[in-house]
């Protein structure tokens, strides 16, 4: 044995070996930190606030920008790293807890009591176990050196609550990413009586995307109440796949139609066309269809006849010409004439003439006035003219989102996770039973993240049982 301290000893006392921390380790350490998590939560909140203000004041949307997406990615990474890191701990706490205890360690728990009673070590242990089982605890017992340690737990699901909540966020992110990569959104306009097989995509290309089936609009209906307010509107749709009818549904704003992973949502509507009917004195009739086009005006869409507003026709032996002088979407008469930009009651102002050879002559034209689908027929030289029907079009939002079931799963997991985190209480009761001399000494301890009061009934049951 040497009395001289070796240099080696000195070195280990003074220096801690400095390991090199690799990039992966630094990354892991940063992203498993709770402070990082909180910083990211706040960053996301601040960025979102900035987003709403920018949108309101400048009309810019930042939510699909790279840096916002980066924050979301970092949140996802942080969640994933923290979850992986803490999995082992959660697993051990649930399935491999430390059972062995000492009287001192149990006495030092959040709440503890001590009872001395008669009987044997075995009989008292049995009583304790029965009492705890009657309070729905799950137990593990361990005997060592003539002492018994009991570990009892209840509400272990609570341990997994935060886990499940965080996992659910990752599931939602996964569903959202998958949906945006593989899914598509767009919209389609179908006029009454029309059948379409493609929709136009919402992405920058605005290209036509085939449905893979056909969608037909049978009829479009606007429901009003007496005071002319729109109560709702619905489209009677039918889907044909390979020529066969596979689905038929009247959809409205809250009831979409889905087929083959594609969903059709009622989004809007407008005027597509109208038909003026003329009846000759001899009963012969003719339907004069007009197509309506629209442009976006300041107050809403502005409608006008998109093809020739003059229609020449022969009926009942006469040659006539009908001219649509004016078109309004919501005829209410009086001075205002038009009530709203919504196509609630389309009206046409017509003039007619039978003097085809000299249309410019004075008195060649007769005004028929405003017609709607409700106005009675107007007569002209024995002919009756009506606005027979209006063709609407429906505007549908089209969405294919294969990620949706994943997102919904995430929602369900999140609700479960939050509930488990806050409404299931994880309680641990430890009991140390020993027979130091006369009588059996039982030390009971309880610990929980909630308050000590949650053990009132458990401890009372134990006290009552042990007498």
């Amino acid at each position, binding site marked *: 044995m040497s009395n001289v301290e070796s240099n080696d000893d000195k070195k280990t006392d003074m220096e801690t070996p400095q390991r090199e921390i690799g990039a992966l380790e630094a990354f892991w350490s940063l992203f498993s930190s709770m402070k990082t998590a909180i910083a990211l939560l*706040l960053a996301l909140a601040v960025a979102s606030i900035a987003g709403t203000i920018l949108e309101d004041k400048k009309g810019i949307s930042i939510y699909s920008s790279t840096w916002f997406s980066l924050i979301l990615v970092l949140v996802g990474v942080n969640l994933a790293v923290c979850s992986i890191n803490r999995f082992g701990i959660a697993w051990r706490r649930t399935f491999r807890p430390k059972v062995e205890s000492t009287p001192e360690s149990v006495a030092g728990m959040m709440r503890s009591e001590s009872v001395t009673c008669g009987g044997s070590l075995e009989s008292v242990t049995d009583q304790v176990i029965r009492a705890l089982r009657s309070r729905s605890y799950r137990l593990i017992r361990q005997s060592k050196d003539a002492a018994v340690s009991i570990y009892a737990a209840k509400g272990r699901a609570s341990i997994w609550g935060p886990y499940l909540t965080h996992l659910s966020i990752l599931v939602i992110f996964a569903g959202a990413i998958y949906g945006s990569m593989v899914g598509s959104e767009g919209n389609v306009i179908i006029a009454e009586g029309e059948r379409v097989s493609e929709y136009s995509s919402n992405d920058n290309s605005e290209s036509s995307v085939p449905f893979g089936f056909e969608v037909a609009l049978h009829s479009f209906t606007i429901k009003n109440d007496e005071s002319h307010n729109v109560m709702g509107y619905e489209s009677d749709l039918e889907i044909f796949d390979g020529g066969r009818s596979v689905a038929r549904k009247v959809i409205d*704003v*809250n009831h979409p139609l889905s087929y083959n992973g594609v969903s059709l949502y009622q989004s809007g509507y407008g005027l597509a066309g109208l038909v003026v009917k003329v009846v000759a004195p001899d009963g012969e009739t003719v339907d004069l269809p007009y197509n309506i086009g629209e442009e976006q005006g300041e107050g809403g869409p502005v409608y006008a006849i998109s093809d020739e507003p003059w229609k020449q026709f022969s009926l009942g032996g006469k040659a006539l010409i009908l001219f649509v002088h004016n078109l309004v979407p919501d005829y209410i008469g009086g001075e205002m004439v038009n009530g709203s930009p919504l196509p609630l009651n389309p009206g046409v102002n017509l003039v007619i003439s039978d003097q085809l050879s000299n249309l410019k002559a004075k008195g060649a034209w007769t005004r028929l006035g405003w017609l709607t689908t409700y106005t009675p027929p107007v007569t002209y030289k024995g002919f009756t003219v009506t606005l027979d029907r209006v063709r609407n079009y429906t505007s549908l939002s089209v969405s294919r989102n294969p990620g949706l079931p994943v*997102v919904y799963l995430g929602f369900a997991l999140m609700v479960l996770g939050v509930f488990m985190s*806050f409404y299931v209480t994880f309680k641990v009761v430890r009991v140390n039973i020993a027979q130091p001399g006369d009588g059996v000494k039982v030390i009971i301890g309880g610990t929980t993240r909630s308050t000590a009061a949650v053990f009132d009934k458990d401890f009372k049951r134990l006290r009552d049982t042990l007498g």
Partner: protein
Amino acid sequence: MTEELGLSLFKIAFWLYVIATGGYLVGFIQNSTVPAKLGRCFLLLGLAVHTASLVVITVAIGRAPFFNMYEYMLSFTWAAAVVYAAVELTTSTTSFGAFCLPVILALAYCTDVIPRGEIDKSVLPVLKTWLIIPHVATAILAYGAFGIALVLAILYLIREAADTAPGKRKETSFWASRLPIAQKLDQIVYRTVAFGFLMQTLVLITGAVWAQVSWGHYWTWDPVEVWALITWLIYATYLHTRMTLGWRGRRSAWLAIIGFAVVGFTLWGVTYLLKGLHTYA
């Protein structure tokens, strides 16, 4: 069962809340339980009548009273009163009434002042779905809870300040002899926030499902959606700082207070200060 009956019942509930407020205030100032317990009786009575008024109005108009700012305030006042009653009954404390009831009374007064509105007859088609019920019900409970948490957090700060004020005999100071100990107040704020957080999670999810069913997009970064999310994030921060950083007391209380500023913007700022599809008025 007419709307007028429902509105009259609400007026009665309002006056019951007024008496309750009086009872709580007297009880608090005099540090006496009898007027406070009387306050509790009138609170519960007022709540019963308020519930009746909501039921009558629902039957009379054929739908839940969630559709315009007036109806929303009528329901929100009810939710705040329900949350407060739950807090009082589960903690067996009457001392908060003197502070929470005036807030509930203020909400009830605001409800009375907002005009009933012309648009109750023609309801926007998108609102005609059963999904509005869980969405608005969880929203009023969430914001009611966050509002009560705000009051309790302020009471915590008051009690803590009284406890740490210089001088002797702190245990018998005005505040200390009337409010529960600071640690208990802190715990009650936490449990109220936790309930609000569960509700807010449901608000976001039911809103997303409704948006998907109506518009085909479960999330569009619309201002109201974003602010509801920000609310959720702030209270998530509150919960995380407590559960993993061990924050308690003053720092937590301040977070609960800041959280309600965010709730305020979500409820009123978005409607009145920003434009968007999802306005409440």
